[in-house]
Structures are given as structure tokens and as C-alpha cells.
């Protein structure tokens, strides 16, 4: 009995001390900095140096590309005001859960020229956060807007 108790205690100690800390995803970082009004410096400390930046804007491109993957706007005081990130379709549910909103969603179809694309958009009840399917990149654009 004593041996079992020792083993259990050892297992608990190992599992509590060796658990890896999952690195925060970009959208978790953005959500956190947007909520607290982070600066460009805060952003670069967490996400690395932006590909282009000025006092009012910063942009991160898709690796090896000219296409923006994340875009940030700062206010006069240099605080993060709005942010955009393109996320893969299969990550949307995970992102929605992490942001933790009551999501109001609408799904449908949209005709463009000779083809029909899906349309899917949603917004967070009580917070200016919204997403919409962006067919052109086969991904979702997720916006944190001016509060």
C-alpha cells in the first residue's frame, strides 16, 4: 500500500514538473495585446520583427511571400488598435474557442462571376471581433477592430 502511494506521488511529481508549456499561438498573442493595447515593441517581442512597420502600421508576410499574413494598426499613442490575421479554415474552431466569445454566425453561398463560393461570417457578441471566409486565400480573415 505504501509502495503504491509512493509510486502515485512520484508519478504526480513527474507529470507536474515535466509538462511542456505550449507556446502561445499568434492569435492568442494578438488577442492578449489587443485587449491590453500593446505597442509595436510588445508585438515584436512576442512575434518577432515585423516585415514592414511604421508608427501606425506593422505587417507580417507569409514566409517567402509578398502576401500579408498579419496586419496591425496603431493609434496616435502607439497602442494596438486593430489587427487582422489570415487563418486556415481548419483552425477556425480552435481560434473561436481560444477567444472565448458568444459567436453569432451566418453561413451561405455567394455567386461571383461564373462560380459559387461559400460564405461564412461571424462576430463576437459584445466585442468588436469578427471573422469571414476569404475565398481568395481559401482561409478566414479574423479582425480585432477598434474598441
Amino acid at each position, binding site marked *: 500500500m505504501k509502495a503504491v502511494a509512493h509510486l502515485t506521488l512520484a508519478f504526480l511529481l513527474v507529470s507536474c514538473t515535466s509538462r511542456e508549456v505550449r507556446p502561445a499561438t499568434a492569435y492568442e498573442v494578438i488577442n492578449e495585446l489587443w485587449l491590453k493595447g500593446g505597442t509595436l515593441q510588445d508585438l515584436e517581442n512576442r512575434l518577432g520583427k515585423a516585415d514592414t512597420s511604421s508608427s501606425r502600421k506593422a*505587417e507580417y508576410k*507569409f514566409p517567402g*511571400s*509578398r*502576401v*500579408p499574413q498579419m*496586419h496591425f*494598426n496603431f493609434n496616435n499613442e502607439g497602442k494596438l488598435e*486593430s489587427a*487582422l490575421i*489570415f487563418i*486556415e479554415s481548419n483552425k477556425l474552431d480552435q481560434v473561436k474557442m481560444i477567444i472565448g466569445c458568444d459567436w453569432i454566425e451566418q453561413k451561405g453561398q455567394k455567386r*461571383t*462571376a*461564373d*462560380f459559387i*463560393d*461559400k460564405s461564412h461570417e461571424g462576430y463576437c457578441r459584445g466585442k468588436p471581433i469578427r471573422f469571414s471566409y*476569404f*475565398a*481568395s*486565400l*481559401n*482561409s478566414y*480573415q479574423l*479582425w480585432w*477592430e*477598434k474598441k
Partner: protein
Amino acid sequence: MAIVGHEMAHLLYARLSVDDIVLFTDLAGWTLKVEGSQVFEIPPTKVLIEDSTLSKEEDFANSVEVYFTTPAKLQTHNPRLYDFFKKRFPK
């Protein structure tokens, strides 16, 4: 046949990975610009078929169509884009 290929390419576009679309965007000469809280797409100045400027997806479908029907035309117009398709649809 060209029309079938074109319409199939539209279906294919919705199944492409973001990485492939980003690569196509660069190779075909499209520009994505974020202004305020809106995303704008600026088409390339020179396109293969006039309605390619309607959208990137239309440009993709037109490029697939040309790749299968008159590949030399695509190779002359945009050799790197031709290679993009050749790698994915070897003949």
C-alpha cells in the same frame, strides 16, 4: 473540354492549401493590400485572358485552362507560373 477544365479549376481552387494560393498570388502578380479594416486585391497589369482581373480565382481557372489547351502561351506569358502548374499537373 477547355470549359470543363476551367470549371474544374474553380472547384480545385477551393481545395488548394493556403501555401499554394499564396505562391500562385505571387507568381501571377496579384497584390494584397490592407487599408484600414479592409483587404483589397490588385490584379496584375498584364493578364492572359481579360476576365482574369475579375478575381484571383478566375485568374487561376483561366491559367489552368490555358496550361492544358495552349501551354506554350502560358510558358511565354509567365514561365514561373507555367512551372508552378507543371510541377502540380505533369503531362
